[in-house]
């Protein structure tokens, strides 16, 4: 399915662009909060996997709210089930089109895991500022 799991949040007036994507946090709040156990950890990729046959789709959406990184892309009109990054099964398409090399596929060492967490937290801080700015 060629639908991106990366959501880019934009504050256009400040030329601020914040891409958010799943970093498979160890706690997996998405899996914990799912009422039917439709989210499990994929053994090959280490990323969350949505088992569509178990997922309640538009009637639920709890995983979207639970994700601390706003990284679950859910548009029932476009695709019936939430979209969470699955590394495209191991050959991520996004990396292929990113010419500055901002997206890289790496062996998940402790050091890279830490770096990924830090980057995601930085992005989240920026995103929360933007969301606060546009709160009514």
């Amino acid at each position: 399915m060629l639908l991106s799991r990366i959501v880019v949040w934009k504050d256009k007036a400040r030329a601020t662009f914040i891409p958010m994507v799943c970093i498979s946090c160890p706690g997996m709040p998405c899996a914990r909060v799912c009422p039917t156990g439709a989210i499990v950890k994929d053994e090959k990729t280490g990323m969350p996997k949505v088992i569509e046959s178990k997922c309640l789709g538009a009637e639920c959406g709890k995983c979207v709210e639970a994700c601390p990184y706003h990284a679950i892309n859910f548009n029932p009109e476009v695709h019936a089930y939430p979209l969470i990054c699955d590394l495209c099964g191991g050959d991520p398409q996004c990396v292929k089109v990113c010419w500055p090399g901002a997206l890289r596929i790496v062996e998940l060492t402790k050091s890279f895991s830490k770096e990924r967490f830090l980057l995601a937290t930085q992005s989240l801080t920026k995103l929360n500022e933007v969301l606060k700015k546009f709160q009514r």
Partner: protein
Amino acid sequence: MKLYAVHGRILHVNLSNGKIWVEKFGNDLLSMFIGSRGIMARLYWDLVKPSTDPLAPDNVLMVGAGTFTGTPMPSAGRTIVTFKSPATGRYFKSSVGGDFGLKLKMNGYDIIVIHGASEEPVYIYIEGDHVEIRSAKHLWGLDVRSAHNELIRRHGVHADTLLIGPAGEKLVKYASINVSVYNVAARGGGGAVLGSKKLKGIVVSKGTTSVEVAHPKRYYELAMKVVRNIMNDEALIATAKFGTASATMGLDSTSTLPVYNFRKSYWEHAYKNSGEYYVEAGYLIGRVGCAQCIVSCHRHTKTNKFGGVDTVGPEYETSNALGGNIGNADTDALIKMNDLANIYGLDTISLGGVIAWVMETYERGYLKELVKELGTEPVWGNVEAALKLIEKIARREGIGDLLAEGLSRACRKVDPETCKWAVEANGLEHSRVDTRVAKAYALAFALNPRGPDHLHTETFAEFGFSEGAKKLIERITGHREWAGVGKVEGRPEIVKWHEEMYAITDSVGFCAFITTAGFAVDEYLMSELFTAATGIEKDAKTIMTDGERIVTLERIIQVREGRRRIHDTLPWRIMNEKIKTRDGKEYVVSAKELNTMLDKYYELRKWSKNGIPLPDKLKELKLEFTIPEALKALQSG
């Protein structure tokens, strides 16, 4: 056959009576006119009469997303805006980046057409099938940035806006339409058209309606080919890093960089107006891209001067128009001017042309009273004067009211003699390249429906800066050595190819950098992309013929509006005052030279000697419905 890549849905909104309806179109129109620009030209023929006053309710303004927009095609997110221009009095096509076109399409519409005029300020809100005209009383008078923020607070972070600034509200003849705040459909006074309709703007919600392509697997393979072509194109990668103002030094080195109101074509301070300098000196703090683009050439810049500015730009045209053109090497001031133009909603090319004219006019002994009004002398490089003029033009205050009319009207009001250095033609200020030296540009500018301007047919390959450029010139003319400025050989052929490629590029939503400044997609690949996207079979020859159809339709539209050979011209300075290059050569575009190129071009196009498309050609292009108009024009002369 099923409709692919586009929805086939045109949203019509009439602001006079509040009526909203959807018009459907199918594969016949798509096959003939390819996408946004072509289809809207066809609509224009039906909707806008030659007698229509551009600022009256019966003018329309159309915004269209490209055929490839919303499909996984890189750098195919450009949006076209079509209307009758209050500056030129004729058909005008404007082009813009940002995300609005993509989101319009994701809300289920390919094109929106705005008719009539509201009595009170309003905006249009689009959320799928739900389309509403809402009061914009609280937004009227706001600059673009403030209006955008207010609308996002109301409609959510994933919405996007198309807006006019105070300049559009005041009907400035070069008021712009801004998309996603800093992406600008700048030229031709589209902002004034919306201002006359009391339409502050349009808001599109996040959008969830996608399109399908006819052959998904093939399309994806071809898209990845385009990605690789872009990544291997050194010119595009340089543009990504240094922005469009990376053109500055190329033009300076070939003596095609117009400074001091086209009195010189190279400058010792040119580097201060270049993309490389913005990076070197630390003005650049980020890059911005339009929808779907992997190049992302737009600049996020910052300066602590002038009260602190955090903005997007300046692009090449702005860097020169408000840089060397007015004798300005102060990059901080340039960034400030760019921001003001952004938020007031003003075309920087026309703005720079007007300010340079003021400076030259003052130098030559006119407009002495301006010193009192501005509190400073409007002399070359005086940024304080320039900043004050921008404030006045946006509000039509004092001298601003005259200058807001554009060069063609302003110079005549002051003294017809001053029109000699009003570098405009057909009501539009000349874009930032010296066409006395770049001859393909000269011909393209003379023929351009917009006026002497680059963003309709830009023959960038003429410079021969890259191998891709030289190869293209060789392919079109058979002569690699004809690449380079200062030459006249092969120019009609070069312009013809570029006009057709541009028409296709615009209509599918591609950025011109992909096909004519960088060379990631040629007409062969383009035809394959179109076939895979829509299921409509095209090859290189037929798709270029479709391009010719669009160009010819735009021409017959303008002929109906009164255009003839005499209007295929360039500003007085370009045709009468020689320019000297770095190596001491002198150039001008003489009437003889232009006429020779026009004769050959009309011959290639099968137009009459007076620039009117001939009935046989119109029949060949399946534009029979325009033949009566062509015959009328051929008879009257």
